[in-house]
């Protein structure tokens, strides 16, 4: 039982970070129907920026993290301007390919700047590394912090959507672009904000994962795990993305623990395909009804 809990809890802790990245993926879909395959690259971009600011430019850690988030947001806005604004209303295939190629370009750029396979480790770490012991369980303190930071960010985000004017505008745009425009809301500004928020969420995820394990380019493949998380939850649902992320994390924790290392790479996809066969729109996705 203790072993089960150990695997399950450490899986859930990582899953919260997947959920965070998946939320970033979902809010872009809700606003502009663009599927961002470059989410993983945005994630390592934020982590690399943070690492450089703190350890190369000697910023104090809190300022380094904030500056990295700011730069990531700026980068998200730039991406929205080119090439993704040109892609609104284009066929699905073009959208998928553009974000895939943005991801490739970014990967190339990051490899050129920070090097491909070498690990960049946060030393001293941002979060205290000593594990804590609760009963029979030994939990990494970093994972616990990561989990609660991720939960905190998602809660803040939902409060932002609920109580601020900008959040309200984003919800209206998610409902219908044209109605929003008729109501005097700048849809462009909303898209820009959406990309900025999505990039910040990815960067937070990246900094958390990076401070736990270190950063290298293949960490960007986390972005490809956030996608099944978002699909299982349903592409239009923010709580769905969080639940999907937790589920994928749980699954990875348990499959690594019980089946063996390496299974976690595909477990997410196998479960996703099974879920999609029975629930074609995930758990909370918007069902489109089509009849002939």
């Amino acid at each position: 039982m203790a072993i089960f809990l150990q695997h399950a809890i450490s899986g859930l802790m990582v899953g919260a970070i997947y959920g965070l990245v998946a939320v970033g993926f979902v809010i872009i879909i809700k606003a502009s129907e663009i599927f961002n395959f470059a989410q993983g690259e945005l994630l390592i971009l934020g982590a690399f920026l943070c690492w450089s600011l703190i350890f190369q430019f000697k910023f104090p850690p809190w300022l380094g993290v904030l500056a990295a988030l700011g730069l990531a947001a700026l980068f998200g806005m730039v991406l929205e301007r080119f090439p993704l604004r040109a892609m609104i209303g284009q066929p699905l295939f073009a959208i998928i390919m553009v974000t895939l190629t943005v991801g490739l370009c970014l990967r190339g750029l990051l490899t050129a700047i920070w090097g491909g396979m070498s690990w960049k480790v946060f030393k001293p770490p941002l979060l205290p590394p000593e594990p804590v012991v609760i009963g029979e369980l030994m939990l990494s303190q970093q994972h616990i912090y990561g989990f609660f930071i991720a939960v905190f960010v998602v809660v803040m985000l939902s409060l932002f959507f609920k109580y601020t004017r900008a959040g309200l505008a984003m919800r209206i745009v998610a409902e219908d672009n044209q109605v929003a425009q008729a109501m005097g809301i700048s849809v462009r500004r909303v898209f820009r904000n959406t990309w900025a928020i999505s990039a910040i969420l990815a960067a937070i995820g990246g900094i958390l994962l990076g401070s736990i394990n270190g950063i290298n380019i293949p960490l960007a493949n986390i972005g490809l795990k956030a996608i099944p998380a978002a699909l299982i939850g349903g592409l239009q649902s923010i709580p769905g993305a969080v639940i999907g992320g937790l589920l994928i994390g749980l699954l990875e924790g348990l499959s690594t623990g019980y089946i063996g290392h390496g299974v976690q790479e595909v477990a997410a996809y196998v479960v996703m395909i099974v879920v999609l066969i029975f629930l074609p729109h995930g758990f909370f996705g918007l069902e489109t009804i089509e009849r002939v």
Partner: protein
Amino acid sequence: MPLPSGIYNVTYKKDMAIFRTWDHWAWLIGFFIFLAVIPTFATRSQINTLITIACTVIAVHGLNLLTGFCGQISIGHSAFVAVGAYTSAILCNELSFPFWIAMPLASIFAGLVGLLFGAPSLRVKGFYLAITTLGAQFIIIFVIMHLPSITGGVRSLDVPPPNLFGFLIETDYSYYYLAMVMAILVTYFVKNITRTGIGRAFVAVRDNDLAAEGMGIGLFYHKMLAFFLGCFLAGLSGSIYAHYLQTINIEYFTLMDSVWYLGMLIVGGLGNTLGSIFGVIFISVLREAVMKIAPIVSKAIPSLGVEFGAAMGLFVMGLVIMLFLVYEPRGLAYRWEVIKNKFRLYPFPY
């Protein structure tokens, strides 16, 4: 497409002809003769590039049928190429099948695996289906990696050279002919499929699947057929490529390769048989060029580091595909048509 001056379609047969005039035929025969004499003057590395192009053309034709004509986006095409390559290798190694039996069997098996991953298209479509094929990429490669007793796992697997009716095709120069002939046959096959009822049904499914079903086109049947044909050709390509390299490794069939296949399709032009060939040639030449230029640049500016070559390759090719998507979404094949029409009517403007 306007016809050249003075050419009229007087019979149905003439209307359907791919090559309408004697100069079309002359160009075609000239091109074949050119392909046939290339090995007499090309260097070995050029021949290698050409064989790779021929194999890739076959795979991209398959992807074009599936994605370009039928509209079912596949982000896992290189996994199906891997299925073909490994099946063919295992059939030849373990059961000592001759190449000419193993090749079609491997292709059919790849097609059947394609059906397995295409089956969700009954229920899901669009982005959800694209991610299912992305899942296929990870799952297939995972399965190959975890069956080390027959696939070699992460180690390389040796493949015997093909033995066609007593001729051992071992050298690159003789393999060049095999690969080219297969590429030409597949091009002919795909071009004709797209002109028959099946091809028109694919296009109808792509453009509006509900309307297509309303007109009596069996959606599921045609989607499955597209998956089967697309993955069949992927398997064929994998089989030919495996017997050419004589050793295969899981590293050759990554997600990145799947993305390059899609990129070739975009650069060439979706839903155009000629486009697939243009796209493959363009991206392959670009890749060679980047691989030639990158060492020069990194030698000139040593501070860029050792990984600069790989980084530059990713960046340049990603950027090229992105620019094509934004500025020339119909691809090189469309540009080619425009240029051809200009010359056809020269010196008149229309």
